[in-house]
């Protein structure tokens, strides 16, 4: 108002008016610098980064942030989990289905140490997660204060980056870095440890600026066309080329580019467990899964191809089997965004560094349109052999006892490949990944690298929040569910619609299988007893059913899918069924066996 008055008074004198206006402007910018707390700065950073959901658990050292969160109810949804491990797995599930960065809150000490398994899982599976942990006051660091743990040093090997904040002024820039590092290049988990004094400290907030460059950090290596040209030449000259792809295709959001490439080049493609769902499982060039319990053809023919094109995958030992018997006849083209992956396990004849979203279109342009009917036929023949020996027994068993495969097939029929399937770790995981069908990318969520039992239930909760419109089915074993069963409480309270299927074989099935095959049937502590899961679910207010008969499978599955709200379905399956094919540990991929008799 006073500006207007001055204007009126000095209406004749333009200069003075201009000066006065300048003055107000200056005052305004000064007023724009407000004093806010470190906690408030954390939440503003989240809002600026487009975060709308946090998985967390409060505690002493993170109380100032939770206090600030109280006023952010309208912008940031907080899911109170039942254990911090559940929080980070949920954030992982969220990140994996949505392609966005998952966010976690935990307190100092035990809160932070409970995150370690999830951090290690996210690290090895390249999942973008930002964890904020509270820490004791800066002046108490190193004094063995209550709930003090050296979180930075504990988490260093399992984070892409971590940082301790002791001064609130650092918070905006550190969080900007955290989100940039977590989500760029090869994604990974980042942990920011904030001391309580920094959370409480008031400082002059100058706004939030997103980070897009750190001089010592090169998320994307430069694309070198000469290597792509060499790769294209090699592909064009190949007689039996074979594409193997991993999660890099999904993380790089390059599903379309990838599909165009294989379709033009006409090359059969097999996925790693984490690459699964990047292309529809029924794609004519999709030949199945690689790995210890992958399909017969992809494993066997890895050692018959002449050019092996690895895209966004890291030659895990579960994929390669014995390295000195792996694809020795083939020239290897390796596309990866992470330079340290090239030559790490398998030497590349031609390395193609870079984001496959950029490199694949260049490669597609350079390769000739081709088809390899005879070569593809080999995969089909292998599949026939596998069907005869493994799949038939799984789909049409000659007993009344159900198999895991029957349940997965029934899910396929009902969901038509549209559902997100989250699996735990073990036999059920292998069976689910072998038989599940997918039409959409980012649909297969599982703990691949770390093999974390207890992953599925919390990850499915997160996945539901990451893809609200999709059906989320968690498939879990009777062992794994009991590792994080407390997260049923999270479902009870926040009601994410998660369909839980427990495939109960009353054993720790995968370990039992190994004991049967390699330890002369010495079943050492694999016999696991379970509570009445349906009753447990009821205790949490979740609808549940248990079935063991073939005729019930489809009807009850349908009932589960039609049910509004979460549902727990226990399916009693064969106790001593084995997963085949199998590449026994220490053998080459071509030594893949179809049954126990071949071992």
């Amino acid at each position, binding site marked *: 108002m006073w500006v207007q008055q001055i204007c009126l008074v000095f209406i004749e004198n333009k200069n003075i008016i201009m000066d006065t206006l300048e003055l107000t402007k200056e005052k305004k910018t000064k007023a724009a610098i407000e004093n806010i707390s470190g906690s408030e700065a954390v939440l503003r950073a989240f809002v600026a980064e487009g975060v709308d959901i946090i998985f967390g658990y409060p505690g002493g050292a993170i109380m100032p942030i939770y206090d600030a969160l109280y006023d952010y109810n309208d912008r940031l949804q907080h899911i109170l989990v039942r254990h911090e491990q559940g929080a980070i797995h949920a954030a992982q599930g969220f990140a994996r289905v949505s392609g966005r960065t998952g966010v976690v809150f935990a307190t100092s000490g035990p809160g932070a140490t409970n995150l370690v398994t999830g951090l290690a899982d996210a690290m090895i599976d390249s999942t973008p997660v930002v964890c904020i942990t509270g820490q004791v006051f800066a002046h108490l660091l190193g004094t063995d204060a209550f709930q003090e743990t050296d979180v930075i*040093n504990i988490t260093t090997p399992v984070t*892409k980056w971590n940082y301790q904040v002791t001064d609130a002024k650092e918070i905006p820039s550190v969080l900007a870095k955290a989100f940039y590092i977590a989500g760029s290049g090869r994604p990974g988990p980042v942990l920011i440890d904030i001391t309580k004094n920094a959370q409480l400290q008031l400082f002059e907030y100058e706004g939030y600026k997103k980070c897009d460059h750190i001089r*010592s950090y090169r998320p994307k290596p430069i694309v070198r066309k000469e290597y792509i040209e060499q790769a294209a030449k090699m592909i064009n000259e190949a007689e039996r080329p074979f594409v193997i792809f991993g999660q890099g295709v999904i993380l790089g959001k390059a599903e379309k580019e990838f599909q165009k490439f294989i379709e033009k080049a006409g090359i059969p493609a097999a996925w790693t467990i984490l690459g699964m769902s990047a292309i529809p499982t029924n794609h004519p060039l999709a030949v199945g899964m690689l790995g210890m319990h992958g399909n017969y053809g992809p494993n066997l023919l890895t050692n018959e191809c002449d050019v092996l094109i690895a895209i966004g995958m890291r030659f895990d030992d579960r994929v390669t089997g014995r390295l000195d018997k792996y694809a020795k006849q083939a020239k290897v083209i390796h596309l990866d965004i992470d330079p340290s992956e090239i030559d790490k396990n398998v030497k590349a004849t031609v390395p193609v560094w870079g984001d496959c979203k950029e490199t694949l279109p260049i490669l597609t342009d350079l390769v000739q349109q081709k088809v390899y009917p005879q070569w593809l036929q080999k995969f089909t023949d292998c599949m026939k052999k596998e069907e005869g020996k493994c799949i038939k027994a799984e789909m049409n068993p000659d007993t009344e006892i159900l198999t895991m495969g029957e349940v997965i097939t029934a899910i396929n029929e009902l969901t038509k490949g549209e559902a997100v399937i989250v699996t735990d770790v073990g036999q059920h995981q292998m069976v689910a990944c072998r038989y599940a069908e997918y039409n959409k990318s980012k649909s297969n969520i599982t703990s691949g690298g770390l093999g974390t039992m207890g992953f599925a239930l919390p990850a499915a909760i997160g996945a539901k929040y990451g893809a609200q419109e999709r059906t989320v089915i968690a498939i879990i074993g009777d062992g794994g569910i009991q590792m994080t069963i407390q997260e049923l409480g999270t479902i009870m309270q926040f009601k994410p619609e998660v369909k839980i299927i427990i495939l109960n074989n009353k054993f720790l099935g995968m370990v039992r299988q190994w004991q049967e095959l390699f330890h002369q049937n010495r079943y050492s502590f694999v016999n696991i007893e379970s509570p009445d899961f349906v009753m447990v679910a009821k205790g949490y207010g979740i609808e549940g059913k248990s079935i063991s008969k073939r005729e019930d499978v489809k009807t009850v599955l349908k009932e589960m899918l039609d049910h509004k709200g979460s549902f727990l379905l226990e399916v009693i399956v064969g106790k001593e069924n084995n997963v085949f094919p199998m590449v026994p540990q220490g053998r080459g991929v071509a030594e893949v066996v179809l049954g126990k008799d071949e071992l």
Partner: protein
Amino acid sequence: MNFKNIIMNKQEYTITVYTENQIGLLNRIAIIFSRRKINIESLNTSPSEVDSVHRFTIVINEIEDVVRKLCRQIEKQVEVLKAYYNTNEEIIWMELALYKVPTEIIAEEVKVERLLSQFGAKAVVIRKDYTVFEVSGQREETDAFIKVLEPYGLIEFVRSARVAIIKDSDGFHKKLKSFEYKEPGETVIENEFLDKNQEVFSM
């Protein structure tokens, strides 16, 4: 160059790492070695020729293949600008050693001047009760001086980590500029295995 020999022989490698100056980075780098059960023979951190950029000098005994992979893992760390590895022939290197001996005996029994000239030693402190000598040079030289002093009652001995200058390096100034530039840098690790499929797989 004999390709196989380069790969298979364990030898001393000096790894030079250019980094940001950040708390916790030493740990991040050290665990890359300890995770693979590789012993660090020597580790030195110092400022570098570029203001604000730090320089680690790490010595390990390994085969080249392992050293190359280690360097890539080190370079992957967010705060690491660049990691190089070199054999002893490719660098000029030195260590510094201090020796404390009783002045009495030394003064009486040893021709100090001869020592000083023969080993390039320097008396840093001379007190009534003890004398401290300093020798800088390579491992054999500092070790040889221990042998000389041992009979006269060597009280204390300490040797520094290795510092090394890469013969072929033209410094980090230029490179840093490219790092500060937003686009991905030109430097990618060259693939020395290109078109050497047979040899690669024979290892």
